[in-house]
């Protein structure tokens, strides 16, 4: 835990490494010079807000997951019934749950792999193209990156619209293919292809631009030395470039996993706010259970399971952040 301290250690007058035992005395000395209650007063508003609108709801969510709360309780002003583990039993004995989890995990794996691999490819490509082409690539990516999720999703809905979408028209141009009035969401596989495309398309810019920045850190001499020693381009990539990029790759992959695991907007919007069973992922399932079916207890239980499933990834991300802070 002491790693947390080092990035924020005062620059000059304190030695950067501090023995855990010396911490207390030092802290007292410092607080004498830095105004006793001041830090507490300064952090109080932030802590109150976080506790009230984030901490308390989290606790309430956990409590709700052991209760039954529906319209009857809400409108009758009745207290929610305690049902023990009923909600969890219901989830874990429901075949839908396993399908939804499998679907969420499958989507996360596919979309993250695609985004990271394509992003890395684009980053490498950016180092090889002419400057004018590179600028065109960056400009295009900036617009994509800046686009709000909802706007991007609405745009793709229009692109794949069954009657007047440009995608059907373009595919229809191919000889022997009839795509007029083709609906992309009748078949869940095609629907998921569209959803994955939206997510990957929107995710590439962040990864490509971040990794491209990382690639500038790879010393040219190292690559040249590798080539002189007889390494192929492929070997130079695997043995020189990727190891140097590794910390960045880990961070962007972890972030993508966290983001894509919580997939909501794209599914919600392309299915008009009422996703069919084949389109449910954990986040939409929890939301529909609570707000479309008014079963707030069961919805909370699903949310708890979702957060628990994400927890290991989040813990991994935080450890990486602290590690980097240590290096800093």
């Amino acid at each position, binding site marked *: 835990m002491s790693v*947390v*301290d080092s990035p*924020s250690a*005062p620059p*000059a007058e304190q030695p950067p490494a501090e023995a855990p035992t010396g911490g207390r005395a030092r*802290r007292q000395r410092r607080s004498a010079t*830095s*105004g006793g209650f001041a*830090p*507490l007063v*300064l952090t109080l*508003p*932030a802590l109150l*807000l*976080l506790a009230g*609108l*984030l901490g308390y709801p*989290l606790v*309430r*969510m956990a409590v709700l997951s052991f209760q039954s709360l529906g319209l009857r309780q809400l409108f009758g002003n009745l207290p929610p019934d305690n049902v023990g583990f009923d909600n969890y039993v219901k989830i874990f004995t429901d075949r839908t749950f396993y399908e939804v989890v499998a679907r969420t995990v499958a989507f996360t794996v596919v979309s993250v792999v695609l985004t990271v691999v394509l992003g890395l490819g684009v980053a490498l490509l*950016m*180092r*090889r*193209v*002419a400057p004018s*082409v590179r600028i*065109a690539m960056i*400009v295009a990516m*900036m617009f*994509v990156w800046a686009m*709000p999720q*909802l*706007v991007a999703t*609405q*745009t793709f809905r*229009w692109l794949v619209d069954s*009657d*007047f979408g*440009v995608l059907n*028209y373009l595919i229809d141009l191919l000889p022997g293919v009839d795509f007029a009035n083709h609906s992309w969401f009748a078949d869940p596989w095609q629907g998921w292809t569209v959803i994955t495309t939206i997510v990957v398309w929107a995710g*590439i810019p962040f990864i490509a631009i971040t990794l491209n920045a990382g690639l500038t850190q790879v010393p*040219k001499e190292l*690559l*040249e030395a590798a080539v002189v020693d007889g390494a192929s381009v492929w070997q*130079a990539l695997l043995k020189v470039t990727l190891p140097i990029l590794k*910390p*960045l790759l880990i961070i962007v992959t972890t972030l993508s996993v966290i983001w894509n695991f919580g997939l909501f907007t794209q599914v919600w*919007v392309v299915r*008009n706010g009422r996703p069919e069973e084949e389109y449910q992922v954990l*986040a939409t399932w929890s939301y529909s259970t*609570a*707000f479309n079916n008014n079963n707030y207890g069961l919805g909370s239980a699903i*949310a708890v399971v*979702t957060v628990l499933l*994400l927890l290991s990834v989040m813990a991994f991300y*935080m450890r990486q*952040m602290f590690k*980097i802070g240590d*290096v*800093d």
Partner: protein
Amino acid sequence: MVATTPQTAVRKRRRPQRESDTPTVGRSRAATVAANTFGVLFAIVMFFPVYWVINTSFKPAPEILQFEPTFFPSTFTLDNFKSAFNAPFFQQNLINGVLITCGAVLGALVVGFLAALAIARFRFYGRKAIILVVLSVQMVPFIAILIPLFLMLQGANLTNSLIGVTLVYIVLILPYTVWTLRGFIQAIPRELDEAALIDGASRFQVFWKIILPLTGPGLVATSVYGFIQAWNEFIIINTLNDQANQNLMAWLLQNQTSRGTFWGPLMAGSILTALPVVIFFLIVQRNIATGLTAGAVKG
């Protein structure tokens, strides 16, 4: 290196060619052409949806609804923008969006700056715990706590009000605000504070005359990012409030249901909604990327 042998002469001739295209290892001319072609294709594919939104939004209505699309509007018209602007709730939701977003950014900035100051400049009991909390809550998917949040705010009569959702948005952007401002404050040398203190300045003066002005650019970057996050949010507000109390982003969602979708006004509305975000984003892009990966490039 003395260049006299034929070998070095050859190498010298080949060198400029290689240097001119890229800084990496040797490659043929064909590969360079292929790379440039891929690059251009990639840029076109990525940009196509953006282009299509713009193209659609300037087309007259009948031209939008035909199977064979036109790749440029036959006549440029602003009708779609007009009908989006005059659509039910658009102006109301635009005003709401501005109020909510500015309120949230201002609130998060004040509260977040104070907390960042404490974390960056003081050592106190529980400091590490606060950093841990700030970092970890950033990861909690907000949809997960939407259910208790909805019930809580409903109990406090804060659903269907701009105040309730503004408070939620403050919390939404607070962790990032604290974390980035902490970095900006730490970048200011502590010696400056101490010199001022020795010269007889009070703690408040140090804050007001030294830290605050020097954090200026950081405050701008942080608030712009907060603006983008709050402006883009629509799930929470769509759950908490009804149509009269929603923001512009949620307006885009409402537009899609009854009697099919009016693509022209929807695309025009999308442009109007995305415009402030796109502009702001292009200004602070660099900061966002570094904020998310925080120093991982060093190695």
